[in-house]
């Protein structure tokens, strides 16, 4: 049972949208950002939530990239994950890194980590995050992420900070989020 349900109207408009088509193209990228398990780099390089049409619903960067580079990464990630099906692994090699991703309804949740990092731990970190979103937004759907984009950042910062996993207890995260909600 998918956690995120996707309103029908949404899919239609975005799949036929002009920008969506452009974004689906893969640009060759020659530059490599530094890779290593060395301590100067965060474990998570970035977190992306994209829909099938390639629209970004959240982009959280844990390294310095300039805007062009970010756009290129977004497009490349979309190109590599959307061609995969359920028989494929949830891991894709990506430049000198790997993307751990999972699809929920029409949304791809992607985490880019170092090749040596623990695949399953990040795969479940994604799920843990999605369960929190689902609880917080009461059956989250894509539009919740659009209209409440500024709250999604808060959820991310509670669970991931400086490219590391900060808090894994759903109870604790939700308690904190409810407390913050009450301050509004």
């Amino acid at each position, binding site marked *: 049972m998918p956690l995120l349900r996707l309103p029908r109207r949404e899919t239609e408009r975005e799949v036929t949208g002009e920008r969506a088509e452009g974004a689906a193209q893969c640009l060759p990228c020659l530059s490599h950002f530094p890779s290593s398990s*060395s301590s100067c780099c965060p474990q998570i390089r970035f977190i992306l939530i994209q829909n099938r049409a390639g629209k970004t619903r959240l982009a959280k960067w844990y390294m310095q990239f300039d805007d062009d580079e970010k756009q290129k990464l977004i497009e490349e990630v979309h190109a590599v994950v959307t061609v995969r099906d359920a028989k494929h*692994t949830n891991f894709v090699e990506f430049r000198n890194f790997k993307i751990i991703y999972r699809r929920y309804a029409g949304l791809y949740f992607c985490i880019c980590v170092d090749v040596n990092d623990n695949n399953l731990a990040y795969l*479940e970190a994604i799920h843990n995050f999605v369960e929190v979103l689902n609880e917080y937004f009461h059956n989250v759907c894509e539009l919740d992420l659009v209209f409440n984009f500024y709250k999604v950042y808060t959820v991310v910062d509670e669970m991931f900070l400086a490219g590391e996993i*900060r*808090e*894994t207890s759903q109870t604790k995260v939700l308690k904190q989020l409810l407390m913050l909600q009450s301050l509004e």
Partner: protein
Amino acid sequence: MPAVSKGDGMRGLAVFISDIRNCKSKEAEIKRINKELANIRSKFKGDKALDGYSKKKYVCKLLFIFLLGHDIDFGHMEAVNLLSSNRYTEKQIGYLFISVLVNSNSELIRLINNAIKNDLASRNPTFMGLALHCIANVGSREMAEAFAGEVPKILVAGDTMDSVKQSAALCLLRLYRTSPDLVPMGDWTSRVVHLLNDQHLGVVTAATSLITTLAQKNPEEFKTSVSLAVSRLSRIVTSASTDLQDYTYYFVPAPWLSVKLLRLLQCYPPPEDPAVRGRLTECLETILNKAQEPPKSKKVQHSNAKNAVLFEAISLIIHHDSEPNLLVRACNQLGQFLQHRETNLRYLALESMCTLASSEFSHEAVKTHIDTVINALKTERDVSVRQRAVDLLYAMCDRSNAQQIVAEMLSYLETADYSIREEIVLKVAILAEKYAVDYAWYVDTILNLIRIAGDYVSEEVWYRVIQIVINRDDVQGYAAKTVFEALQAPACHENLVKVGGYILGEFGNLIAGDPRSSPLVQFNLLHSKFHLCSVPTRALLLSTYIKFVNLFPEVKTTIQDVLRSDSQLKNADVELQQRAVEYLRLSTVASTDILATVLEEMPPFPERESSILAKLKKKKGPSTVTDLEDTKRERSVDVNGGPEPAPASTSAASTPSPSADLLGLGAAPAAPAGPPPSSGGGLLVDVFSDSASAVAPLAPGSEDNFARFVCKNNGVLFENQLLQIGLKSEFRQNLGRMFIFYGNKTSTQFLNFTPTLICPDDLQSRLNLQTKPVDPTVDGGAQVQQVVNIECVSDFTEAPVLNIQFRYGGTFQNVSVQLPITLNKFFQPTEMSSQDFFQRWKQLSNPQQEVQNIFKAKHPMDTEITKAKIIGFGSALLEEVDPNPANFVGAGIIHTKTTQIGCLLRLEPNLQAQMYRLTLRTSKETVSQRLCELLSQQF
């Protein structure tokens, strides 16, 4: 419409977002955005002061517009104003705006930092959290300067709330990563380690990341974290599935924390304390046992979380590589996963097994899964899984299964995905060479490779087959016969024509006796391919023809006719024309003797690292397979204790291609091999000058590497994902010369590449080093060389440090390693009789002249290895001198510019106790001391 929460009521924002979403075209969207921007601008400029709510709403709209991909050039000031609001929602939007649109405007940074400072001091945990998250998200140097002192205090203060501690730990981690120099270690470090004991598992989770990073850079200082991590891990893995409440995820207790703790332990060797070590082994066994228990839930989340911990435990077991029992159990567990219905698990099992294959303890166990892996190659649907299967086959290959593996890889190659063909070709070529018992098999394999995947056979591969055929006369006849047969095929790959042309040109005479492959038949066969080939191949064939003129005088006129034809002599290509003209002339004017001399058979190629291995390394870049290959080699060296088989520092760049050797094809010069001649020349850098920028602390593991060079002169000194440093050195008396090879392992240029030699004060007067600067740019995949001339003035103890700084893809890299120039390099061995030895031994009986060390053997006590090491150390190994044949004695003279120091040494192994006693007697105390230190590390 989504359910926008009632409470926050930013209705204007929701309306705006809806409007944008309803825009039918890009133009309509831009129009709507411009309208909104104009509106916001007028509000911000208006006379009426905006209330906090409006300001928040407009800043949030700006943020939304920015995230849509439009530039935002105003509103920063308003966002900064929000930071000093007392309302959480306003502050949050302010901080979010700052974090997303980082601005280096110095005026604003001061204001932002001021607001952060106030929030950090507010004692309001919510505000402190926002401020810390902002620092962690921006992490600029200015912020590090402002807060690197404050954050550690917050982290270790007794009254800090748990959630603030979590944020502070990771905030500090971010600052440490961006500006390690600004985060000095201090009193807080020991208290940070104790956070591993914290009651709040969230705090432990955050702190473990921080400690892991700090421990990588300062292993000594954080050594105590090992036992704390082990006991924390032990408490987690032995807890019942509900004990940890909030931190239990689908019946798995604290999986992420367990993974982090296991990663922290991978920064260290196995614990020395037997109690800690025992407890850790128990933990690892428990984790392996749990994998066998029936699952507590059918949900994939349960098995994923459990297996995340399991895989990390296996990584630790492999990292320690010291418990054969655990390694074999890990291998069996992975073996089960190889047939699991989850693709993820099959993939991860293949990947993890690849590293297990390189351990001597588990190599055999891995091999038992060969059939499953071959099956994976044939049946897996995901190309990345098949790729891992190829990697694993490569890793598990040895003499016993090479024929089977090579055959399977070859057959897979016929259908393999284009993206991985070249790599498979390289792997097959390497395995075929490495494990060739029978060189006929090798030649067949390579020709098959060319037949199946000719387009993916790179130059290196066919160069290599030629090198090998030329160097082994037992295979030359077979090679000539086989290429001749292969060339019969109506359509054969151009690479085959190249190999065929070259080999027949050298060894065609070996099959010329058979009328079916008479000289004329050979020539006609080759020439039938000539016109379909590219220019470089035709050039090669012309050389083959002139070689035929020498080998087979009977076809001379036929060949001269061909050379003389207009299509050759007047060829538009200069290279071909020149060859035709010169070869024709040569065949006409030269006497048989001269012809025979000029066109003599190629001499054997000097043995060097396989050019294909270099190519694979280059291709794979910083991937695991490459590293594996290296570690495997390194390990086998350690195990055998013998000298390094080949200087691993050579790379494609320094390996001239055989075609260049033979043909001088005027191909592109093989990568910039050294610095271009600098202006004026002879410009010596002042190698001792203090480097302006800070020098990195020594790279982890560099001491081990250093020790490995004490008894040898060539090898890889340092290697990380980006850079490989290889050394070759030679010493004579008090002089030496060292070649340092810097290899760029990436495909991106290194800029401002500056290696600097640093001698500590005392060393400067004792060791004289001279070198020239290298080219500041190192192209991707290229290697540059630096020569260091060394003079030993007087005896010395310390070693010079090599510091390398460069820019890579926008980040500054700084690496320091000790350069293995040690006193024993200036040894000259001295042979002497037993009588002489003991006479001199007695003469050096003054207590200051003798240094003795008794130590435990770190490596297996093997007589031959020990002998090799003593010889490698530089002294003569004197046989039949010591009355006890189990002992080793050596003698030599250390040459310095000022003096010569005679040295005698005696090594007494005690097999029962696994101990050695090493005694050194020299005429100088410091020399005895230093030599004893150096040699003790070696056994």
